[in-house]
């Protein structure tokens, strides 16, 4: 992996200290808030969507897209860009506003989310949406696709990293573990899985539907370097992601278990697990927006 050099912004990341500055943290908090608000606005078009699946991952989106990943250079197809894949593709509505802010999706397209002929649906489509690195929707494929990208990058001596966001319910899919074995065997150190461990899936609590613990021990046993972090603590999350990305000595793929709260940011979603899929009527939406505006996560 000698070719994994990367250019870091001169201000933010002295090698000895990966912690983001107060200014960076403020920016990332604002972006996570932006993701939540835009999700509410866009789902209003479709009248149904995965609010709470985005809300648990909002800080992860913000940290990756506005700080950690080497991606925003105006060209969504740049061969050396970092890649991002979503095993939990149903949270794509939280990513589209970011891609629109980067200029990859035009405003009108974003505002017409899910309308007839629009490229933006509940799941991401790489053929239709610039900035989407891989399509998803069938749970369990993304880590294999990310592995292929990581191996392809290494074969061609490219320096990019591949970040794959996985749902915790997704751990129930067999192909995830095929990819896990394979990535460790091939020492895909440029592959980083982030598990959004929000604890819920469509039929209820993950541990009730089909238990997956001890998750960290499973990944460690499969040959991965494993970290656990509070997925809403932007300071800790960003520090860890920066560290993992900068680690040239690692020979294993890396798994980050992000402990999160389904529906984080909206109190009645945080306490009511039935919000995996739903619709906020205008008065509920107004309450949610108010809370998101006034809470600091």
């Amino acid at each position: 992996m000698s070719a994994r050099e990367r250019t870091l912004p001169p201000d933010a990341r002295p090698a000895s200290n990966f912690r983001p500055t107060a200014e960076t943290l403020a920016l990332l908090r604002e972006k996570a808030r932006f993701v939540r608000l835009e999700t509410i606005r866009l789902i209003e078009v479709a009248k149904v969507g995965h609010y709470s699946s985005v809300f648990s991952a909002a800080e992860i989106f913000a940290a990756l897209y506005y700080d950690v990943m080497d991606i925003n250079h105006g060209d969504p197809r740049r061969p050396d860009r970092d890649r991002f894949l979503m095993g939990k593709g149903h949270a794509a509505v939280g990513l589209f506003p970011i891609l629109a802010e980067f200029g990859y999706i035009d405003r009108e397209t974003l505002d017409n989310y899910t309308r007839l002929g629009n490229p933006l649906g509940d799941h991401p489509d790489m053929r239709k949406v610039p900035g989407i690195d891989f399509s998803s929707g069938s749970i369990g494929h993304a880590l294999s696709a990310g592995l292929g990208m990581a191996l392809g990058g290494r074969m061609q001596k490219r320096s990019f990293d591949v970040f794959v966001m996985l749902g915790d319910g997704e751990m129930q899919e067999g192909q995830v573990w095929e990819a896990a074995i394979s990535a460790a065997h091939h020492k895909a150190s440029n592959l980083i899985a982030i598990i959004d461990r929000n604890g819920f899936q469509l039929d209820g609590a993950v541990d009730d539907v089909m238990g997956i613990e001890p998750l960290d021990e499973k990944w460690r046993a499969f040959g991965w370097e494993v970290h656990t972090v509070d997925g809403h603590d932007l300071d800790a999350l960003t520090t860890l992601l920066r560290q993992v990305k900068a680690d040239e000595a690692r020979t294993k793929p890396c798994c980050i278990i992000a402990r999160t709260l389904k529906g984080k940011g909206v109190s009645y979603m945080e306490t009511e697990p039935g919000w995996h899929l739903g619709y906020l009527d205008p008065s509920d939406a107004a309450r949610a927006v108010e809370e998101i505006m006034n809470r600091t996560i």
Partner: protein
Amino acid sequence: MNRPLSPNSWQYRELNAKTPGLSHLSDALISLVEAGEPVVAGSADLQYSNGLNKFAERYPDRYIQFGISEQNMVTAAAGLATTGLKPYVATFASFLGLLCCEQIRMDVAYCAQPVRLIGHHTGISLGFYGTSHHATEDIATMRAIADLTVVSPADGPQLAAAIKASADYPEPIYFRIGRGREPDVYPLDTPFTFGKAIEHMVGDEITIIACGMTVHPALEAARTLNAQGHSVGVVDMPTIKPLDRAAILAAAARSKVLMSVEEHNVLGGLGSAIAEVLTDEGAPVRLVRHGIHDEYSLIAPPTHLYAHYRLDAAGIAEVARGAMGIRKAA
């Protein structure tokens, strides 16, 4: 890491030596690499069965051993393709066309990644290994997937030509190939064009349209029948999708009866694809579909199975004789 088995191992002596048809796969891929193509090959614990061990030894840095994880292999191949590489991944057709059907749809075809999927030992060519290893549904599953080309080469040389022609082909391709022991129909370096049928013989009474390993016995059957005074044509249809509609309609215009021959269930395969064209165009011709008639194939050595299912030359001739006796429906 790919530590080859000893050349004295059974896999080397038996599998590699007795399957000359499959050595074309590695040879063609090696020639693509030598021509500067960014080819990468992958296999799922079957490199001695499909001959990719030769490629792996020549270009270890361009070969990925996926172990027994076919679905992971197919999806990872799509990921590899997004980085600009040209992946060719191979496993038994029964696993590729059925076990990996959804990965092929979602990650390869829907994502429009130019992955080349090599399903080998297709049809009933794995003989006594049993129904689990027989692939008599893979044409049906693969041709229902949008933006996926389906190719069934007749022999090793045609496989090699198709692999070489695939280097710049824009769509993903499913290659349905035999076990490498099929007798050659074509000389080496016969040019291959995707989507084009190859007309071998012209006949008024019947035209046999065959694909894959059935082309050779179909030609032999036609020669026998023509020597007995019949007028039998033979068309090789190596590309099942997109289908050469013009070739089918030309045969329909020329012959009283068409007969499809395939090592596949007659439901959903080449015969069904031909029937769709004839129906679309309202062609007034009788079509007899010959293959496996919606059953789980028996266990036996392959040659015994081909005889049992009348997919050898004698069997095809017998079915064709029967078909020629059919009068057009009143």
